[in-house]
């Protein structure tokens, strides 16, 4: 493998600035391959995994049960009402979509920016993206009054000669989410191919060998393969990069295109993107910390990774803080009585608790990450990442519910209260996410083996 001088210098730089290494010293090609492929191929299924899977699968079944009940009875089982026509399902949708941002960002953007440290976490982050987007994608469908007609949102030729309303941001949303999901899955699968071939070659039993073999699409590791692979991967990364910005911008525009005070703001798209990266990194952190411990991957996912992610969280968290401040300022500066009321209602109205909890979670707590001691304290990072996840959910709640529950005519103002089904769908979707994630960790290499081998190659020179 050839290395550009640029990559070398990046590595040198990372070494010289005194931060932790991206891979612990002492690893060889074989040790890396052994350790990661063993999780899938040779290590017995641990009790912890079974336990986790049992819980996740139960939650998934609760989700399916609630969904069946929803289809049988209607969206009235939720607390959604008029004027709060969007509530938990849309909050969940935006939250999951946000979480689904980290994967592509880490894979594509950091790939293009030659951030080598991404290697240990990109596979996992991409998988997380896929699963989060899967969760997210379900909610707009479930949330329809007549979910069986969801395909009417897509522009397909039909006998009615009808097209969707291209002016509606919900249509852009349908495009953005499906595109994002498609590109993400391609990118992820493409990255998996060399590792699938490794698993095929190392599998002891026939069945895995056949399955991994089919999935590896005849990868033999020839120079031509590698050359094409690198080109295609880079191209896909290029394609995926704008999507990182577009998806959540468009979700932001779902709100910005309306005239509801609190939704109708020009800064929605960048604000949503920042929030998405913020929550995405927090979720990667939430998941990576227990996994690296459970599977003994401390050598590959090092303190350097955690610290870098903490820095990203701090940066995007500051953008969020700026967003909140801007919101208040705009309301004041616009002189618009509805906007001003909206801000005051957020801070002092019946849902004020959620606003202040959001400020605490998203603005106050991440400030701890300014301290290196906190950034290098794993339990603290874990707790902070959890708090950020909660905060981002609250942020969507504040935007969606508080804005809607009191808009223009006071006669229509209402208090929204979620029902048990709202919570079932929220918790159930976490079950779906965790189920998929646990299956992934059990069946596929959660860290890119071949990319780590590249890293070993580079670091060995230095060591």
């Amino acid at each position, binding site marked *: 493998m050839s290395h550009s001088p640029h990559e070398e210098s990046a590595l040198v730089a990372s070494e010289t600035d005194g931060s932790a290494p991206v891979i612990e010293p002492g690893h060889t090609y074989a040790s890396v391959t052994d350790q990661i492929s063993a999780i899938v191929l040779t290590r017995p299924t641990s009790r912890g995994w079974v336990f986790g899977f049992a819980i996740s699968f139960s939650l998934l*079944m609760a989700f*399916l*049960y609630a*969904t*069946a*009940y929803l*289809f*049988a*009875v*209607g*969206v*009235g089982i939720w607390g*959604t*009402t*008029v*004027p*709060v*026509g*969007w509530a938990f399902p849309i909050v969940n949708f935006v939250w999951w979509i946000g979480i689904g941002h980290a994967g592509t960002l880490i894979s594509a953007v950091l790939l293009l920016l030659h951030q080598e440290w991404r290697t240990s976490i990109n596979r996992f982050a991409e998988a997380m993206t896929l699963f989060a987007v899967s969760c997210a994608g379900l909610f*707009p469908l479930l*949330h*329809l*009054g*007549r*979910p069986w007609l*969801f395909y*009417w*949102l897509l522009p397909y030729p039909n006998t009615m000669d*009808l*097209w*969707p*309303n291209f*002016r*509606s*941001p*919900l*249509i852009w949303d349908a495009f953005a989410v499906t595109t994002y999901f498609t590109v993400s899955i391609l990118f992820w699968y493409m990255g998996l191919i060399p590792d699938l071939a490794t698993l095929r070659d190392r599998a002891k039993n026939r069945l895995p060998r056949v399955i991994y073999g089919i999935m590896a699409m005849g990868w033999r590791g020839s120079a031509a393969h590698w050359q094409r692979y690198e080109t295609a991967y880079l191209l896909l990364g290029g394609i995926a990069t704008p999507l990182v910005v577009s998806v959540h911008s468009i979700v932001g525009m779902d709100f910005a*295109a*309306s*005239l*509801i005070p609190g939704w109708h703001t020009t800064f929605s798209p960048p604000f949503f993107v920042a929030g998405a990266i913020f929550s995405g990194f927090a979720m990667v952190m939430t998941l990576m910390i227990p996994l690296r411990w459970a599977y003994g991957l401390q050598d590959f996912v090092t303190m350097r990774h955690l610290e870098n992610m903490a820095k990203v969280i701090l940066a995007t968290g500051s953008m969020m803080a700026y967003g909140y401040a801007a919101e208040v300022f705009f309301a004041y500066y616009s002189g618009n*009585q509805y906007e*001003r*009321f909206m801000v*005051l209602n957020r801070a*002092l*109205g*019946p849902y004020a608790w959620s606003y202040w909890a959001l400020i605490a979670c998203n603005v106050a707590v991440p400030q701890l990450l300014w301290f290196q001691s906190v950034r290098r304290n794993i339990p603290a990072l874990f707790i902070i990442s959890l708090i950020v996840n909660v905060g981002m959910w609250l942020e969507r709640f504040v935007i969606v519910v508080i804005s*809607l529950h*009191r*808009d*223009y*005519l*006071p*006669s*229509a*103002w*209402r*208090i929204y*209260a979620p029902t048990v089904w709202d919570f079932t769908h929220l918790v159930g979707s976490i079950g779906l996410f965790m189920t998929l994630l646990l299956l992934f960790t059990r069946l596929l290499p959660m860290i890119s083996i071949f990319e780590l081998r590249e890293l070993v190659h580079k670091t060995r020179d230095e060591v």
Partner: protein
Amino acid sequence: MTDVPQNSAIEAAAPRADSTQPAETLAAALLPVVERIDWNALRDRTNGPAGEEPLWRSLDELSAAPEFFDYLHREFPRQAGEWTDPATRRSFLKLMAASLGLAGVGLSGCVRQPEEKIVPYVRQPEDAVPGKPAFYATCTTLGGYATGLLVESHLGRPTKIEGNPEHPASLGATDIFAQASILSLYDPDRSQTVMRAGRISTWSELLTLITAELPALRARHGRGLAILTETITSPTLADQLQTLIKELPEARWHQYEPLSRDNVRAGAKQAFGEYVETIYHFDRADVVLTLDAEFLTNMPGNLRYAREFMDHRRLARTTVPSGNSKIEMNRLYAVESTPGLTGAAADHRLPLRASEIEGLTRALAARLGVEVTGSIKDAPNGIPKDWFATLIADLHAHQGSSLVIAGDGQPSHVHALVHAINRQLKNVGRTVEYIPPVAAEPVDQLGSLRELIDRMQQGDVKLLVILGGNPVYTAPGELEFATAVERVDLRIHLAPYFDETSSLSHWHVPSSHELEAWGDARAFDGTATIQQPLIAPLFSSKTAHDLVAALAGHPEQTAYQIIQKYWTQRLGSNGFLKRWKRAVHDGVVAGTRADSRKPEWKFVDQIFPAESTSDLTASHGKQGLEITFGPDPTIWDGRFANSGWLQELPKPITKLTWDNAAFVSPQTAERLGISNQELVDLSLGERTLRVPVWIVPGQPNNSISLSLGYGRTHCGRIGKDVGVNASDLRPARHAWFATGVEVTPTGARYPLSVTQNHHSMEGRDLVRVATLAEFTIQPEFIDLEHRHPEQSPTLYAKYEESENAWGMVIDQTACIGCNACVVACQAENNIPIVGKEQISIGREMHWLRIDRYYRGEIDAPDTYFQPVMCVHCENAPCELVCPVAATVHSHEGLNQMVYNRCVGTRYCSNNCPYKVRRFNFLDYDAHFNYGGEQASALKLLRNPDVTVRSRGVMEKCTYCIQRISEAKIEAQKENRPVRDGEIVTACQQSCPTQAIVFGNIRDPKSGVAKLKESPLNYSLLGELNTLPRTTHLARIRNPHPSLEGPATIDTPAIKPTK
């Protein structure tokens, strides 16, 4: 077969009941376990006393097996209809199966439908054109008084009620009760058969019984027979009853109406020594004072009064006042013991406890020069001095063009004093007219009921016939009607529902609905209407005419014959048929309006019980509270309790649905330490009632208002056990208010469902209000920028101009908030009801709502009504955001909702600043269909021109597009444009004050276009650039200049309230 089956029914029921062992086990394995039949018990049943052998269909029925009844009442055995339940174990299993099915197994819809044949008419009836409704004139009654109706009928199926423009009490408008009576017609809970002691019987069996009793009754000259009716204005029924009493002179005719006009009648008697009916002419009144009188809603003739009052008030059709030209507008002073619509419409409203009104009236009478005993000249305590002085000056200044009205609940002296005041002010003959009583045989009804109860307790009543009414439920609790009635040997009750009284009667006869029976009735001014049926009785019901005829020994006569016979006498047999047809067709019998009369003045003021406020406070018990009873704004005295539309209709002031509550003022609530939705025990004397509290701004302090009509125990599935029965607390003597009520908080909470939780406009300029003085000085008080902001630049092409551009104007000065439009819209557009629980989370379906805002101090705020429905924005925010283009703009400016295309994202509702869109969160059509059974009757109610919406679909006001289309088709057939006034929306048609005007705004000569030119016209939330097609006219008040300085300007208050 070893046993020979006793009859074929047994064979049918148990085809495999032979004794061979294997077959028995097989049957046991296949069939559900059924208990062994107890044959002896069955035989006992079939061998009842002669003539009482029950009819039976099968052994299962005979053995009264619950499984059989279960089977009988379910179309699909068991499982069906359980989806709406919360998750049960059974549905859990099903849903788990379904959730696995979600993996991708599609459901097969390949069920072969049963074949049905459609047969055309052999001979087409002349008028029956499918798709073309016919209208028939008839009437409905409330408290005995008639309102003329035109009923829309689709191929023999009445579907919608409109007012009869030729009827003096309607003038084309209707109230909520008339609108909702169409629902009562099809109510599946109506009583359907004659019942004897709670078991199904027949009319002929009752006739046999009555015929058998008659000779003995005649021999006794009718002694022991008591007939209890409500107020009767039907000339025919009155004639029948009078003839019957003539034949049976010892029989007694009692009358009782829970919301009786006893005080009105007694007051007239005090003033004139005889019963007279008072009617008012608001069109000639410049200053009106009401003393607890709800003339806009609760009085016979209210629809006409509302129209005349508002015609004399509205400025909508006035152009900009120029120079010194004076604008005429009447002024209304309202004194109210319970916040009501009259007070909301008033220029000066004074909340006052019911017991204090008498003192005010006496002082007023004295100051106006009426000779009264004592010398009270000053305003009683608690009444602002300047208010009192201004009122007197204003009345003085408008002699002959003023009007004072006392409410039904005020004692008779108040009514007598009001007669004296009107006389003193020279109003008699101008704004006040006296006519002979409209009701047949006016009596003191509470006295009449008490007399009946006394006689029943003494055992003097052997046969009690109750013609309508529900005295067991409505009689004041103190009278113990229910115990007394048990002492009567034979009790026959005619009623539309198997109600509380029916359950205590030996015989219950279902009474026909007014839309399915012949009858007649008189309006507030005496005008008679022949009530013609629109449809054959749906159930085996009878009318009072039938029952009285049976008592008179003529069971063979039908109501039709009886009525025609009576009117032959009245109209003369010469040319009768022509006149009869004309009368039936017109809905009024020409020349039957009562003649005005001048009763002799006999009023002498007497020493009444002490009225001064301080005396009353002393008798007010230790808490100093009094309680006022009144009709419920939506279900009246409980007779409409089973009407889902009326139960779910928000009460105009409180916006409460599905319940009554004890209304208290904010100050009183604070003093007693009670809060909204808290249950309190109200005790009056020895009786106690547990009621939820609702705090109502504008309620007089230390006074509780509780409406009647709730707490029904027998009425049907909708109204059963809803609310509390205020009659239980009602005192026997003075049934309208009582002092000395005690409140004990229980600390428990009872959720109440209201449709509006926020009552302040939050400083937003939603209902624009000015005084007449302000308007005269500055007609452009709504500055132009705010009125209709100019359309902002847009990238999109403008809509094509079309011949018609539909628009609407709502006059907020004229709107009295009576809700008639809301029910009319519900009836016209097949709008479902959703139930209390859904209302409590904000899912009401009314397309048209009436927002009610308060302004001013919390103890006596101004109340404003603002009808809001889809305003059909030209720049509709909903259209932009719908992903599937299910809501689109028509070239005529309608914002159309395409139900078929809607997938239910609800973004349109979120983005609607008016929040007028309604979403079918559940299958509301099935959700509230009386548990799934017998709902087929309700299907007949549907307007065939309007789609019934399914679950998951958005809906909203369409401007009654079906009516627009109909008019356009007619116009097209005649090759002409649609004429102004040809399209009348349902809300517009029902409005008593004509506050809603609809039409083509592109036609400058149309009524709506002219109103849009008015300086009062403004767009609600116009600053959002939605360009609504429905605009509102600012409300103009006419307060007396000496009582109100320049109107305060609302300062924006942006602080949110918790």
